[in-house]
């Protein structure tokens, strides 16, 4: 810029500020201060000044190249759209199987299995703690028999399957491998993801079983097993989604998720595994919330920060292991029970944010999820929302279209900076495990959640249809899906029949193998568990032995 031009610019800026000042006297702004949904201050106007010191090559670079701010693939959605992956599953394996086939016929490109709570917590359907819960929030899986039904007629070499399973992830992965084997698909060919992220269970989601130490061992056992035998499997989906749902800010979502990631990498490295290898199979899972600009910036910031962490902190040179690949789900907590159809619009905005943030796969929520399990119709609309953004909106036709926007880049920088600060603080506490034990992370999230609740109640934050623009509604008109109460009893009967017909001697053998492997940290548990599930040992039996050996986690509440 020549000197005269710079002078002119400064003059223009001053003139603008003056105009604003005058303008404000006549027409004050709506609020004294503007903030993003996550609480970051927003200026009236962003200009090149806000990006001073930014270096394009260093900070943004090119898609598919370090630091991956602009995306992990060189051509992004011009090559292939993200995977449209709808989380589904309820009641019995038969019913879920039917829902999956429907979704596949509608153009879903990846399955995502929801398990019921007893399955997620390692109880069989006949366990006393399972009462009233069987088949409620997902499908009930007790043994290989259920898993065979669940994937009946679905070729496992053709679909990729994501399973939301954490504490007993090894068992469900083993079951999947066993079904593949029965279909004649070797495990080398299987692709998919297990969530397997225990830290966020302690922090935000609550479906833990074992204490941190043995839990981390189960996870690193999976890393090792898959590196050798299931190379296309994403061994973990490090999840910020639930952290955000629990009420965190966008910055906290990035910070705590990446801090969890650091803990996993450290645990595996301590076991002598190479981050260049297992690092390629780490995947992430984020939330797409309402604040559009902040969300787009969040995804970009997370990508850049993780690349730096892998490269600088862990010395990772493999490009695949530097990339943060992530799945996204639209924010369940933003759905309202009031005027549920409005949720379709919210989901559309969130979808757009996820896509402009460069997601690798996406689940869109159904508009009726604040009320109950989604119906086929609402699931259909959710999927169409993705298709409309993909095929009609045009935002997919060029890579990272919001790059260079003064505000988006500023927010990207700010989120990265604040997240790095959090991570440094957690490092100072001795890492994520001790930060969780101290209750620090939970406290931060709860404070944010409480602040949000208060802001909504005071009317400072508007939720359309909830605290503004309400209308009288007739709830009885809504068609809602319900799980039949008889599902539990039927499942228990099936389980008992299966137990009577299997080789119970073999079962005992497998269980004692697992027990002795559990006692010896040097043994990888995965092969033993795989052996057991093939012999129709149930999930509850396996987890039961591990419970006895490992003990159980008790939550650490700080309120």
């Amino acid at each position, binding site marked *: 810029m020549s000197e005269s031009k710079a002078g002119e610019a400064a003059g223009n800026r001053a003139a603008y500020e003056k105009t604003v000042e005058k303008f404000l006297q006549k027409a004050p702004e709506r609020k004294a201060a503007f903030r993003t949904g996550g609480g970051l201050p927003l200026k009236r106007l962003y200009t090149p000044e806000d990006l001073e010191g930014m270096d394009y090559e260093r900070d943004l670079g090119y898609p598919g190249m370090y630091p991956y701010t602009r995306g992990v693939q060189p051509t992004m959605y011009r090559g292939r759209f993200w995977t449209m992956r709808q989380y589904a599953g309820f009641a019995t394996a038969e019913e879920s199987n039917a829902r999956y086939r429907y979704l596949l016929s509608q153009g879903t490109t990846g399955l995502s299995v929801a398990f019921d709570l007893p399955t997620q917590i390692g109880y069989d359907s006949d366990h006393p703690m399972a009462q009233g819960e069987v088949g409620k929030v997902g499908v009930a899986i007790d043994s290989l028999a259920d898993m065979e039904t669940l994937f009946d007629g679905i070729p496992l070499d053709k679909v990729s399957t994501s399973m939301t399973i954490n504490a007993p992830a090894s068992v469900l992965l083993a079951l999947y491998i066993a079904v593949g084997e029965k279909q004649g698909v070797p495990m080398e060919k299987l692709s998919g993801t297990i969530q397997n992220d225990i830290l966020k269970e302690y922090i935000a989601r609550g479906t833990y079983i074992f204490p941190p130490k043995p839990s981390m061992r189960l996870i690193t056992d999976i890393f090792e097993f898959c590196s050798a035998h299931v190379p296309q499997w994403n061994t973990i989906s490090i999840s910020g989604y639930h952290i955000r749902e629990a009420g965190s800010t966008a910055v906290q979502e990035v910070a705590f998720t990446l801090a969890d990631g650091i803990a996993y990498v450290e645990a595996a490295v301590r076991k002598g595994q190479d981050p260049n290898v297992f690092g390629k199979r780490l995947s992430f899972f984020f939330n797409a919330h309402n604040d559009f600009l902040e969300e787009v910036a969040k995804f970009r910031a997370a990508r850049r920060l993780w690349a730096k962490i892998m490269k600088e902190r862990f010395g990772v040179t493999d490009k695949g292991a530097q990339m943060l690949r992530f799945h996204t789900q639209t924010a369940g907590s933003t759905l309202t029970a009031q005027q549920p159809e409005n949720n379709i619009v919210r989901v559309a905005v969130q979808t757009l944010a996820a896509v402009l943030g460069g997601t690798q796969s996406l689940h869109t929520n159904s508009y009726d999820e604040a009320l109950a399990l989604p119906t086929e119709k609402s699931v259909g609309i959710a999927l169409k929302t993705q298709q409309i953004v993909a095929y009609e909106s045009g935002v997919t036709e060029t890579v990272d279209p919001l790059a260079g926007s003064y505000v988006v880049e500023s927010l990207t920088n700010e989120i990265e900076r604040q997240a790095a600060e959090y991570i440094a603080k957690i490092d100072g506490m001795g890492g994520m495990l001790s930060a969780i034990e101290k*209750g620090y992370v939970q406290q931060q999230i709860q404070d944010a959640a409480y602040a949000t609740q208060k802001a909504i109640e005071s009317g400072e934050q508007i939720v359309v249809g909830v605290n503004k623009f309400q209308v009288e509604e007739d709830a009885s008109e809504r068609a809602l899906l319900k799980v039949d109460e008889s599902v539990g009893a039927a499942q228990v009967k099936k389980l008992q029949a299966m137990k009577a017909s299997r080789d119970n001697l073999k079962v005992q053998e497998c269980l004692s193998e697992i027990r002795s492997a559990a006692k010896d940290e040097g043994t990888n548990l995965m092969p033993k568990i795989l052996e057991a599930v093939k012999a129709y040992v149930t999930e509850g039996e396996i987890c039961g032995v591990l419970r006895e050996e490992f003990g159980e986690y008790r939550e650490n509440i700080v309120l």
Partner: protein
Amino acid sequence: MEKLIARALEGDHRSIARLISLVESESPQAEIIMRKIYPHSGKAHIIGLTGSPGAGKSTLADKIIAHFKSLGKTVGVIAVDPSSPFTGGAILGDRLRMQQHAVDPDVFIRSMGTRGSLGGLSRSTQEAALILDACGKDVVLIETVGVGQSEVDIVKIADTVGLILVPGMGDDIQIMKAGIMEIADIFIVNKADRDGADRVATEVNMMLDLLGMRPWRPPVLKTIAERNEGVEEVVSEMTRHADFLRRSEEGRRRRWQRLGMEVEEILRREIAAMVEVAWEKEKSPELFELLAARKTTPYEVAERILGTILTETCD
């Protein structure tokens, strides 16, 4: 009321719970209850567990309950958490770690907020302990956070005080210098799965050496409460301490001291109540005018009120 007390003395949990509430909210019936209850108390072993926030008190209490239970004892627990000084509300979360005992008819767990009493143990804690004692619990565990006044208060209530320390908190030792050393009967170094537990134990032992010979030398024990390690030892030392108190001169001294404090406490409370009544009666705008104009002094006023109280009580 009679029926409620009778049922509580038989061990009915609902009635015990109700009595504690009545006493806790300082209802008019509180004194009646305590007079009726008191003669039945004095049998339980009252144990205080104190230590800094997050030291593992509740986790340890959970395991201690289980051990006493396995010895065939019934257990009452009072878990005290601070109330908010601003709203008077509280979130009481200690029992979360003891919930496995919630359905055991031989275990009674009660959470209490500190309410008015500044960070310390409230009077009602002691009364609740007496109620549990009278209603048949063999052991009464009291969990309090060791900040400010409460760790000193706990000696007034408990026969045996267990102080929980954890490795890696340098200031713990500092706190002890300030006076807890003398009050703890058992030192428990919890989270011994962490580095530094031995160092803390050694330091405590060295300090105890400095205090010289005493009739009861507090043992220093290491535990991993989470894994139930070392807890059996804690329980047996607690029992040993109870035996010691029962048999020793020191025990008698402490019992008498406590009884003396109980009498003093009631006296102080009664007198305070009288003073309050008399002062309320005496208060008037004229009196304040006189005081402000220095025509009389607070000393004279107080003397006069005391005079009235004395003559009234003598009549």
